């Protein structure tokens, strides 16, 4: 590192990993725009509202279209709240069950995405509470059923295990608010104002939770710096 710093003293430090990350980020943003609905478009609001209206009238095809549009987003949010991808799948399924029941209550004055996000959050909280209660009552921990993906798609299994590891490393020690805000801002790229609008928190609370989450997550790495102890003394 010293040699590296001496070799390029005037150039900004860009490691090979960083340049690779930048490439990945741009690629990822491009893929995100393909998959996730762009909510800056007003016609998208209108389409969602129309689909919700049809689904509330009992049109199953409209509901299936809604699920197709939002399943990936809901699963992604559920990853933040769950312990692993399997639990996220359960949460996502439950979210759509509740969405089907309550779709008549959806008012078209806000984006459907925000409405679904609130359902996801509530569902995840309830499922976690229920599991905790059942865990206390059960004598032995219940074995998780094996998913089909583990037997049919080895690559998928690896991806899911990696995701579970990431969730465990990043989120397991964080309270739900901090985990949620960190994920939405730093991993999904939303602005604090957007997060505040979606979660119903105040922008100040979003920033506070974000700072706390960042500090908690980065502390373990930053502690290796010699000046770190002096900084927080």
């Amino acid at each position, binding site marked *: 590192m010293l040699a590296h710093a001496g070799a390029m003293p005037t150039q900004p430090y860009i490691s090979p990993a960083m340049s690779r990350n930048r490439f990945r980020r741009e690629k990822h943003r491009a893929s995100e725009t393909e998959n996730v609905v762009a909510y800056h478009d007003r016609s998208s609001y209108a389409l969602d509202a129309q689909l919700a209206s049809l689904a509330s009238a009992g049109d199953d095809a409209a509901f*299936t279209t809604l699920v197709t549009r939002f399943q*990936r987003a809901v699963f992604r949010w559920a990853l933040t709240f769950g312990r692993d991808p399997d639990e996220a799948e359960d949460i996502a399924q439950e979210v759509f069950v509740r969405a089907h029941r309550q779709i008549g209550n959806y008012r078209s004055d806000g984006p459907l995405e925000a409405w679904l996000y609130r359902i996801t959050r509530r569902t995840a909280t309830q499922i976690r509470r229920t599991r905790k209660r059942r865990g206390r009552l059960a004598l032995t921990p219940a074995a998780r059923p094996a998913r089909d993906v583990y037997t049919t798609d080895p690559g998928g299994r690896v991806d899911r295990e990696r995701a579970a590891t990431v969730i465990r490393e990043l989120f397991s020690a964080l309270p739900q608010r901090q985990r949620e805000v960190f994920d939405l801002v730093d991993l999904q790229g939303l602005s604090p104002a957007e997060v505040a609008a979606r979660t119903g928190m105040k922008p100040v609370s979003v920033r506070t939770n974000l700072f706390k989450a960042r500090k908690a997550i980065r502390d373990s790495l930053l502690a290796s710096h010699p000046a770190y102890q002096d900084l927080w003394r």
Partner: protein
Amino acid sequence: MNCHECLSELATGSLRDLTPDSAVMLHCVTCPYCGPLATALRDREYNAATVLNNLPPTSSPITVAETAAMVSRRRRLGKVAVFLTGAALVATFWISLFTTGLGRSVIGGGASSGPETETIPLSCLSPEKAAELVGPYLRSSGSSSKIYHVDKSRVAAITIHGTPHEIAQSSAVIQQFETNPNACQRPSIAEQIRQMQEELRKAGMDQPIPEPAPVSASTPVQAPAPVAAPAKTPGSRRE
């Protein structure tokens, strides 16, 4: 920028917004400690974002939608069933409350649960006998019931203080024995006179009344003797 400022920025700042020409990154170029740290932090968060954002759900959306619709309809039916069951349960409870004796007693007991006082007239039984009869019904555990019967004045009645249930029970018992002549052992007239004399004697008025002397026509009527002060005889209180 020194290491402290850089660490402070790295600890709470957004790593996404760090451009290569920012002060933090310029410091990281020259610092042998901050540079690798910044790289490690950015790598870790970017890898996490990549792993989580690119992980697809395994279930097909059509399956999810069909399952959601089916479960939702089933839960709706279940909710209706639970509501109807609850309504039936409540209706059964209220109907039983108004139709069964237990329910009526519960409702009636709630309306007048306080103790009452009642005087029961006696035609055959003496108040003492009546009190002995109803005593066990009134002396239940925790009861504040009492019997007030007039003994001295010989009024043929008994006064009971207790709950409506106790009073009803007592009057039923009294009525049962009032109609039974064997149970009535009220003293006869001669017995009553004897008792009165006994009481008078106890009170000091036990001297018999002197009988008047027989009056004959041949006996001349003597002039009455001059009134003298009567000699006091011990024991005579009557004037």
